[in-house]
């Protein structure tokens, strides 16, 4: 197989239209990823913020992190076999996959938000309360903005993990870019597999770079400027203990906060 065959595959007009075409597969993949991350954020932000702010139920974070040891492929098959038969429509493939993807996305998101809030300078938190901020104001005006770098690190981890696992989910009949890999494997169409892989890798790279750009834009320069180094050494130090590194997902550690 040469670059020419790969080029020929990509330039074949048949690849660019219809349900099997690249635009549709890419759109599906993006849709799964977006839905999963949206659900994951809806779960993880309030939960992580609440645990970080109140310091209660910290075992939730530990538990979520322990879940990362479950092999995603196994989880995918187990949930599909359990949930799939209960659903009598086309969604029979989609729902179990989304459930698994959410289960995989939540731990990095959750520990990102939690670790971010936990890393807020206690003096800043004390000052915020002392000057008369309500608990909600402390959370929204001080803790969450300060937690943004680690939260976004978590989001990058989760995004990569979801993009990768959505590929695998083609083996339980989910659409998306994974179809090229799984279908190619079944029909021994090696060119299709390689081209699919290139697409997935490219998507993952682009998504990660986009999120890195968002991180640069969204995080206050007061935090990203000099304190990035502080946050980093702090998280590596907590890594010594039993708690895994907040940004270290089992599948994907994002390159985390890009070096400035």
């Amino acid at each position, binding site marked *: 197989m040469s670059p020419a065959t790969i080029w020929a595959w990509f330039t074949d007009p048949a690849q660019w239209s219809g349900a099997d075409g690249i635009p549709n597969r890419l759109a599906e993949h993006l849709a799964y990823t977006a839905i999963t991350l949206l659900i994951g954020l809806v779960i993880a932000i309030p939960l992580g913020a609440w645990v970080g702010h109140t310091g209660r139920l910290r075992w939730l974070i530990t538990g979520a992190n322990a879940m990362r040891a479950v092999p995603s492929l196994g989880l995918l098959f187990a949930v599909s076999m359990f949930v799939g038969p209960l659903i009598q429509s086309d969604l029979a493939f989609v729902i179990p996959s989304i459930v698994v993807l959410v289960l995989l996305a939540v731990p990095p998101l959750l520990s990102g938000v939690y670790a971010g809030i936990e890393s807020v300078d206690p*003096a800043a938190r004390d000052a915020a309360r002392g000057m008369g901020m309500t608990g909600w104001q402390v959370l929204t005006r001080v803790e969450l903005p300060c937690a943004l770098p680690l939260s976004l690190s978590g989001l990058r981890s989760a995004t990569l993990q979801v993009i990768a696992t959505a590929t695998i989910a083609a083996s339980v009949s989910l659409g998306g870019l994974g179809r090229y890999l799984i279908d190619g494997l079944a029909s021994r169409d090696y060119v299709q597999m390689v081209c699919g892989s290139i697409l997935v890798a490219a998507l993952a790279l682009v998504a990660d770079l986009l999120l890195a750009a968002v991180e640069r834009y969204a995080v206050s320069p*007061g935090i990203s*400027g000099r304190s990035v180094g502080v946050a980093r050494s702090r998280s590596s130090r907590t890594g010594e203990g039993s708690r895994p590194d907040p940004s270290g997902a089992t599948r994907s550690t994002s390159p985390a906060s890009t070096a400035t």
Partner: protein
Amino acid sequence: MIRFEGVTKRYGDADSGSADGGSPGEGGGDPGSVAVDNLTLEAPTGQITVLVGPSGCGKTTTLRMVNRMVTPTSGTISVDGRDTASMDVAELRRGMGYVIQHAGLFPHRTVVDNVMTVPRLLGVDKRQARSRAMELIERVGLDPAMARRYPAQLSGGQQQRVGVARALAADPPVMLMDEPFSAVDPVVREQLQNEFLRLQSELGKTILFVTHDIDEAVKLGDQVAVLRVGGVLAQLASPAKLLADPVDDFVAGFVGRDRGYRALSFAAAPELSLTDEPTVRLRATGEQVRAIGSPWVLAVGDAGEPVGWVRAAAVDHEVTRDLLHRGGTVASTAGSLRALLDAALSSPSGRGVVADDDGRLVGTITAAEVVPAIEARRSATTAGELPEGASTR
């Protein structure tokens, strides 16, 4: 006025005070331990009351009970007659400036946004809050160009100034300050202390100030409360009284060495007859200097301000600044006995230089002439008459 009445804080049993996230400060460790024990104390309006003591004496806990960062186990704390327990906690805190050791600035906000925090919480409109903040930033001695920087770009001393500006932003009548100057180096600390006193002389806030540094307490306090471990008030007195008359061994030990000498800081210099000192101008010739006939001659500047002593034998052509001895201090006529004595002791001629408020030379005085004034004051003190309002800074 902040008033503590029989206030006790016990940690460990059904503690609601630290449950809302605050660290209990010192003395909050073992369960059931008493951090503050039946404290009754008044911090008068417009004055600085300093809480001082070793670690574990409950001074921070005491401070934090005022804005209910810590809830007292029993007793009441009132501010200007209102029981703090009955007030809305956010309203209570917004009405008090709060300054802490490491400033606690918000890292994600610029300096000016940090200073605007409380006015914005109180609903002041943005432009008004901003102009007020800019005014305060200058007032605490920061370059207005710093306003757009982030806390991480400031030195520790600058951060602390921002912390003070932020606490003053809503112009609260009461300020709570928890070791605000203890995390900076001694030179910066002294600057901050002096500017703090200048600011207070303009603003006249009711201030409760926590420190572990007795020198700081004595320097800043209108009154000083010494606490012992376990949160028991050992002595509440003016700095002069504290130095002159510690109630027990603990306070005496805590107040430390040289307290006899340090106490002179609080004794205003009485009217003493000063000796006229013959002087020379800068650029005076060697003959002019030696004509005075003293081994050390005082040089003055154009406005008659003393600039330093010069050794007559060392002048070849004329008196230049290079030749001046730099060791001597200058006492003010409005100064303290300590300043007078120090001027005499530090002068190479043995004659202490005294200047008036405008810095012009008035005369000189020797240590031997100061000592009788100290003796006279001692007899007044032992008669139970500490001159009130004699405190000078």
